[in-house]
């Protein structure tokens, strides 16, 4: 467990250090990706793949049908979040085919986006469902054979931070990600203390001094 945590820290650090290197010129090009994509006013499905096996799979192990519900009401069970999904962890077998139906019960867009898939099959390494408010989207992807934990999230600004984060474990997975509601705590954690904490701390410290002094003087006499 500790090793996994250290690994996560290193990952985050690596991610952080890579950010300032991004050149301004690069950023303008990045807006023109070419993905396998269908887009209409109900949302989009990107990089859906229901027949091409990853290189390391001989055959499909099995099929999964996952129905995911998203919306603010699914945040109710997790204090400190606003956006939610009904499930935050998915467990599948290696080389399996997963069909996800993403049902958005809010009136704003939401996404079910998975990262880290092999780039030769999924441009950018991702599979992405995006449902406009009140709509649902369905798409399929096939996972490779290795034990790995994949990040699933909504990439709209602050939606992952405020609750829409999940993980997909293939096989045994590769540990838990940080800040998955119901699974793991945040790496940066809020501190919940009363506003008058300094008064309390001071009072306890004074009490410590008084008690110790009394004890020592009573022993002397």
């Amino acid at each position, binding site marked *: 467990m500790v090793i996994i945590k250290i690994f996560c820290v290193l990952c*985050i650090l690596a*991610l*952080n250090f*890579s*950010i300032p290197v*991004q*050149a*301004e*010129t690069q*950023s*303008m*090009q*990045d*807006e*023109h*990706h070419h993905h396998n*994509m269908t*887009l*209409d*006013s109900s*949302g*989009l499905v990107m990089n859906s793949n229901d027949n091409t096996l990853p290189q390391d799979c001989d055959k499909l192990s099995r099929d999964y049908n996952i129905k995911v519900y998203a*919306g*603010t009401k699914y945040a109710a069970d997790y*204090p*400190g*979040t*606003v*956006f939610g999904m009904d499930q935050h962890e998915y467990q599948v077998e290696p080389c399996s085919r997963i069909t996800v139906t993403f049902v958005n019960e*809010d*009136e*704003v*867009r939401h996404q079910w*986006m998975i*990262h880290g898939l092999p780039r030769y099959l999924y441009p*950018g*390494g*991702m599979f*992405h469902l*995006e449902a*406009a*408010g009140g709509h649902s989207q369905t798409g399929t992807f096939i996972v490779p054979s290795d034990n790995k934990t994949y990040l699933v999230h909504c*990439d*709209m*600004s*602050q*939606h992952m*931070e*405020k609750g829409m984060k999940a993980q997909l474990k293939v096989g045994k997975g590769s540990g838990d990600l*940080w*800040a998955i509601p119901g699974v793991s705590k*945040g*790496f*940066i*954690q*809020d501190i*919940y203390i009363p506003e008058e904490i300094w008064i309390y701390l001071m009072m306890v410290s004074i009490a410590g001094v008084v008690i110790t002094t009394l004890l020592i003087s009573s022993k002397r006499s």
Partner: protein
Amino acid sequence: MYTRWLFFLSILVALMCFPLQWYPMALRLQLGQWLGADEYRAPPMAKIAADTTTELPCPEDLLNWRDAQTIAGVDVRHSPGCIVDNPNAVAAFVRGTNNVSQQILMASGLTPDAVEKGRDLDGDGDPDEIHIRLEVVELNGGSPESDLPTTQYAIAPGISPGFWVFAPKMFGMATENFESSKARSMLRLPSPAIRVEQGDIVKITLENSHYMPHTIHFHGVDHPFVDEDGEGNDGVPVTSEKPVLPGSSRTYNMQPRQSGTMFYHCHVQPHVHIMMGLQGLFVVEENRPNNWLQTLNVGAGHVRVPSVAVTEKFDREYDLQYLDIDIDLNNRIQKSNDPRLITRDMHRRYDITDAKSDFFTLNGRSFPYTFRESLVVTKPDEHIKLRIVNGGSTGIALHTHGHKVTATHYDGVEAKPAARITRDVVWIASAQRVDLDLETTNDGLHSYGSGIWLLHDHQEKGVTNDGIGPGGNVSAIVYENYLQENGWPKTQGMDFNKFFTAAYYRKEVPVWGDLLNGKFSDVEFDLWMLIRLLGLGLSLGVMVALVINGINKRRP
């Protein structure tokens, strides 16, 4: 016994170490009379300048966004700045995102329902049913995974205050890609300028994609207090409607009868939400035949497809939005991730009556970034329409170098020609709009000729980034013959590279370090004086210890 000697020794050392500079003046004069002037010792050397990494002032336009081009039958004008709007988005806003090809939508990043344009009701060749969908985006917000902000947006090198903005409805990720934390270019401050035509049937849907409640209030725009169904339509949570909750949406309806430069903003806890960036220009254009408007102008600035009425009288049009920022407010969204703690910090613990502004933006950027994208470019003998709103908490005294401008409209209402004032400092109070006619006739009044003429708030704090100048809302009126091919002005003054470093605005770089062979550079400290001061501190410590020791000994 040795303690007594040690005590005298420490007094002696303390006296010797005590710097001459701290002696009383009378004593110094007396010493000077007895001993004469002090001997010369050279002050410390100049500090060698730190190696600072510089951003590229004017990044290359790899996708040819600056060029004049026709997209989906829309003539998108050449935009002369270094960084300009995505012309595909401009064309989609003109034609309607429901009326352009998949290819153009993909290149613009917009959803098909971002700006829907419907029927031509008056038969004059342009659509009169307009449906705009806006989301709420947080820039530079906090995260439970890292202490770096998410969906990053810098107003100047190294300066990234937290913002909330209305944004056009776009598909896909909020960042440029999975590896980057930078917000994609259309997610930015300020909220987009909205343009509709007089008499259009306008629907604006707020899809509240943010974790806090918001509304939209249409300031100065002709709109009914309630819509046809009796639903609140004024955006004010205490009088007309409940706030739009996270994940919910509301559609506002209007058919503006009067034209003019107006304003829109969130009206939930407005002293916080307006200052966080939930505000934009709202322009009602005069009705003309075949008047296809650029419904959204992302980031305000140059209008690449101006309306028919504007092109009748003006050669170019610019939207200018000013906003000042109290960093103590804006950075609160980065300090915790729990919305309950954030809202407590922002709406109860923050006290705007104690606020002071640290940063001053024009179209969402401060100098030097303003020079990349907010230059007002012109030629001689032109008329430029400047639509200006002051979205900030204090007034601005907008000064045009080299020009006297004429205010034609105040708060969207035309001033009678006899009442128009031509001047070079225009006062714009909070939420006020002024339309300026910038005339570039070289007559010594309207213009003094070609050049790079600054355009800035003359309240001096407004030309700084947290007290470091040049910064703030400084931009310029630049004549084309003073503009390089890449859009950067042919400046003849100081090297701009220094301003494109975060270190300069962290106050780490001397203002004139590169002038006059380092005569104004940073200074090394005086090592000898440091040793003396350390000696003084040590001997004082010894003295105190001896005094305490002495008192203890005398106790029975």
